[in-house]
């Protein structure tokens, strides 16, 4: 009984990613067609070359038909799956395993979500019939629980905490301003961020990721076949997933300053990839910055900063585009919004660009390191699912 990982067994040979935003003029079908065909073109394949498909969407459709109909896929397997906000990553993970198993030669993972058709603010979801006792507070409220707990534990006063959160949003918007695919492509002044109307706890509107529509896709083959398609494949080094017992709201030892699921999934991913010190070995990371305190806590849980120091590192620019370890160089959920099924693959798309040196020059990271990390989270503090991938431009 052991988890082995599939380091260097499969590779990404092509990717597609739509612009993220309020696509009043595009349907779910439109976005799937756009992302899929951009990925085909990127890999130099046609749809008939794909043996099987994994579609991640939380609520924009059910069953494989959600993909096979708009793409007119001819009687091939399409798996539709959902794993909360980590849905896109989960599609990718399962597609990779299908190739590693030898079952298929060429597969596609694709994620999509259309949030802007609901007419509501923030995320909405439909739950099965219940006894009516579950918490009904919103996502920003659940993640805002991190802020006072972190501040108290590590001795930050309210103003300093707000400054840390503000800088995280400022940094991600600054990166997003350089990204034509982002929903928000403008720098935002720190005073605007910190002075924005409060949504939940200390979180203002600018501490929350946006709500957008989007789709992203990846084509995956066995590593040994990758060079038939591209000179610069992206090898999968690690895929980990952690689904917790959801006891944060039951267990008094949980202090709302960490995600235990993230720690478990990071540890597993580093083991698979052979990473000892992520801070020094990784070139860049795309993390799940759904709300600013999430990114702060993730820096510690992913091992980018030691416990209690993430806030200092955030303030001194460690995770800036030109910092020691750039985090969310594409602008993150903050700039892209969070079309749930698409986000995990959108993160991989930035690794695809950066590690192959194909990001626009103004945001291309200058690094001799070859590894990128994506982290995707679903749920809430104390009850979540967490995904970590490590991808790299070199074998070994």
């Amino acid at each position, binding site marked *: 009984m052991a988890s082995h990982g599939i380091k260097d067994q499969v590779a990404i040979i092509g990717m597609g990613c739509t612009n993220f935003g309020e696509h009043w003029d595009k349907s779910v079908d439109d976005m799937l067609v756009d992302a899929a065909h951009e990925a085909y073109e990127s890999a130099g394949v046609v749809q008939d070359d794909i043996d099987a498909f994994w579609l991640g969407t939380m609520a924009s459709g059910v069953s494989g038909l959600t993909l096979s109909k708009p793409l007119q896929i001819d009687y091939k397997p399409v798996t539709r799956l959902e794993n909360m906000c980590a849905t896109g990553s989960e599609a990718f993970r399962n597609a990779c395993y299908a190739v590693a198993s030898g079952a298929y030669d060429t597969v596609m993972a694709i994620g999509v979500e259309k949030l802007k058709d609901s007419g509501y603010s923030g995320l909405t979801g439909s*739950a099965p019939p219940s006894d009516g*006792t579950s918490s*009904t507070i919103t996502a920003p409220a659940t993640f805002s629980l991190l802020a006072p707990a972190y501040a108290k534990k590590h001795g930050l006063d309210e103003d300093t905490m707000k400054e840390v959160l503000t800088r995280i949003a400022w940094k991600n918007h600054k990166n997003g301003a350089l990204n034509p695919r982002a929903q928000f492509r403008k720098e935002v002044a720190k005073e605007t961020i910190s002075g924005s109307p409060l949504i939940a706890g200390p979180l203002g509107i600018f501490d929350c990721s946006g709500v957008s529509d989007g789709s992203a896709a990846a084509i995956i083959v066995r590593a040994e076949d990758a060079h038939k398609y591209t000179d610069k494949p992206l090898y999968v080094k690690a895929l980990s997933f952690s689904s917790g017992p959801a006891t944060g709201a039951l267990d008094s030892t949980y202090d709302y300053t960490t995600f235990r699921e993230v720690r478990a999934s990071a540890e597993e991913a580093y083991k698979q990839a052979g990473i000892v010190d992520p801070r020094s070995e990784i070139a860049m990371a795309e993390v799940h910055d759904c709300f600013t305190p999430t990114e702060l806590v993730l820096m510690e849980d992913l091992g980018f900063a030691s416990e209690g120091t993430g806030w200092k590192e955030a303030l001194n620019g460690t995770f800036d585009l030109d910092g020691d370890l750039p985090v969310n160089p594409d602008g993150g959920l903050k700039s892209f919004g969070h079309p749930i099924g698409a986000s995990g693959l959108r993160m991989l798309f930035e690794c695809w660009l950066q590690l192959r040196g194909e990001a626009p020059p103004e945001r291309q990271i200058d690094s001799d390191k070859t590894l990128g990390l994506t982290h995707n989270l679903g749920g809430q503090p104390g009850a979540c699912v967490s995904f970590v991938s490590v991808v790299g431009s070199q074998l070994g």
Partner: protein
Amino acid sequence: MRGIIGYGAYVPYYRLDRSKIAAAMGAGGGRGERSVASFDEDTTTMGVEAARNALRNAQVAPTSILFATANPAYLDKTNATAIQAALDLPQETWAVDTGGSARSAEAAMRGARGSEGIAMAILSDLRTGKPTSADESNGGDAAVAFLFGDEDDSPVIARSLGSASATGEFLDRYRQPGDSFSRIWEERFGEQAYLELGNEAIERALKAANVGLEDLDKVIVVGLHTRAVNSLSRVAGDKLVNGLESVVGNTGTAHLGLLLASALDTAAAGEKIMVVHLADGATVQILETTEAINNYNRFKTVESQIAGGNSSLDYNLYLTWRGFLDREPPRRPDPDRPGAPPAFRSQDWKYAFVGSRDRSSGAIHLPPMRVSMSGGSVDDMERIRMADIPATIATFTIDRLAYSLSPPVVAVVIDYDGGGRFQAEMTDVDPAAVEIGGRVEMTFRRLFTAEGIHNYFWKARPLSS
């Protein structure tokens, strides 16, 4: 000897300063304050709170519940069943509603007094009136619970010396089912009717009890007809018990119980108390306290609850809470209605706030779980009721986006004394006053109503001192 063996009152936290009505509307209002049930309270939840106060120090549990209100949360469906469930009483308990009129309070009190075993009468009311009306201003919201039993069950603190009733069919106040306000005939007409009925019933009750007016220590005159109550009160002279008009208001179905509780709170042994209830007739009850009242351990007095109120409520919020002002909701979906089968399956949790405790590790699970989070043992749990256990705030947030009739929603993660954690919504609290380390207790509330289903569950509120 059978009589009252315990009681508890519940006056909700909020007060409306009546001057705010005139300030907003240019009419109505008056002096003093009225009590106001919060947006998440109804007559059922207030009944639960009163019953919890009555039972908190009791050594016995009721075998029947008689619930009276003129403002029932449900029709067709019994409301007393939710109270029985919230009190974690066994299914052998007989729980029934009486209701529709303020007079139904008498049915609950007399029924409980005449029942076998330990019977609890719960009187609850939430009084509304059209904006600027006298009913709006003079009304109040409250609940009260009285436990009746035999000396063998528990010491009787007050027993009946005698009673008399009179019934009159005349139009005084009336309301169509579904209306949120009453209509009232010209006051002077009702006054005449009530005075005649009241005087006659008092005379017969005194005779039945074999006492004279001069023997009485306290007199309670109560009814929704203010003018008749004031006129008849003159017979009491300085023995009249304060009607709480200026601090609570007239709580309708609950008021006779609320004033009796208030009188018992300060009563010495051997006091004779006459209660006159004017409601579609007159019913007079003469009680005498016993020696046992000297040792009676009250959980929360009426006076302490009046003193603990919050008068900062604005009139526009009051109107919103009562449904008279339909405000713009957040751009969020309405909450889902609870499902009947899931609610039935989890009624120990949902209504009684009973979790599960792992017999081997002692870990407390809220909501109850079959598999232990500590050690993983399966189906080795015992039930543990957490409703009366205080807790401490571990962390919290103010949710300005979530659906609520009265935003923002305050959410707290709380750790119970002796173990157990839960993420609760907090109520009866100023969001600015919430802090880590703050102390809270649980209260039974109506979270929301969706598709005609009231979603009852527990919230946290600041621990009362």
